[in-house]
């Protein structure tokens, strides 16, 4: 999920951004935001499904996601894992361990970059979450129980 830039040239630019040639001003409209996101995708060949937050920053605000953050939403539509606030508490390793404890070792699956046709769900409505099994909140309990991902 692409959210507002953390170190744009017109705000708090870091030396590392200049060194890595990642220099963008803070986008003022959605097109600029999409241009940066697409540049990111093409430079890193990012293979996972990708979404861009709107200019009202609704996803960022809903998830307190800036500058970077990790979440897991479980099968019931509830927050199952909430990572710390980046950059200091952004910890993919911890998430990997959490996922392994709950769902078994992570298997690497080759994804293709998302195609526009795959993302045409504008008319679909959000699903209603099923009731949460309290056991699912506890990674230790989940690890000891039959909690395998489908």
């Amino acid at each position: 999920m692409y959210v507002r830039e953390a170190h744009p040239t017109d705000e708090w630019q870091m030396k590392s951004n200049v060194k890595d040639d990642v220099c963008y001003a803070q986008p003022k409209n959605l097109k600029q935001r999409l241009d940066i996101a697409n540049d990111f995708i093409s430079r890193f060949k990012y293979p996972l499904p990708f979404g861009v937050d709107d200019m009202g920053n609704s996803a960022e605000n809903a998830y307190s996601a800036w500058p970077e953050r990790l979440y897991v939403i479980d099968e019931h539509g509830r927050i199952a894992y909430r990572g710390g606030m980046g950059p200091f508490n952004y910890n993919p390793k911890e998430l990997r361990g959490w996922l392994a404890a709950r769902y078994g070792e992570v298997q690497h699956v080759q994804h293709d970059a998302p195609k526009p046709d795959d993302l045409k769900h504008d008319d679909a409505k959000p699903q209603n979450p099923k009731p949460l099994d309290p056991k699912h909140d506890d990674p230790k309990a989940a690890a000891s129980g039959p909690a395998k991902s489908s």
Partner: protein
Amino acid sequence: MRVNNAYTLFRLRGFLCDYGAEKNPLRIFWKWTIGVALALFIIAFIGLSLMAGSPKDAYGMVRYALPHMHRGKLKVGDDAPDARLVALNGSDRFHIRERTGAKPLVLVFGSFT
């Protein structure tokens, strides 16, 4: 330049003498309060500069980062909020909650810079 330095020393000496002779407890209180606050501010700024890398980065952190960093109120077990996202082609939209259900969904928030 030499005259200026002498004048500064003279003023400093005068300040210290005045300070030593200060009898008004309210003025002493405010002098100490402002002095301590100033010292703490300088120490905090130096600490932040060391942590962030430079005084410029410390300013950037305070000016641009801290106002936007929120711990948030979401907790494990809460319903995942929905948000409408834009696809990379710019014309399609989708909701986060459309992607939840059959499998757990990992959300990775971030930006390029």
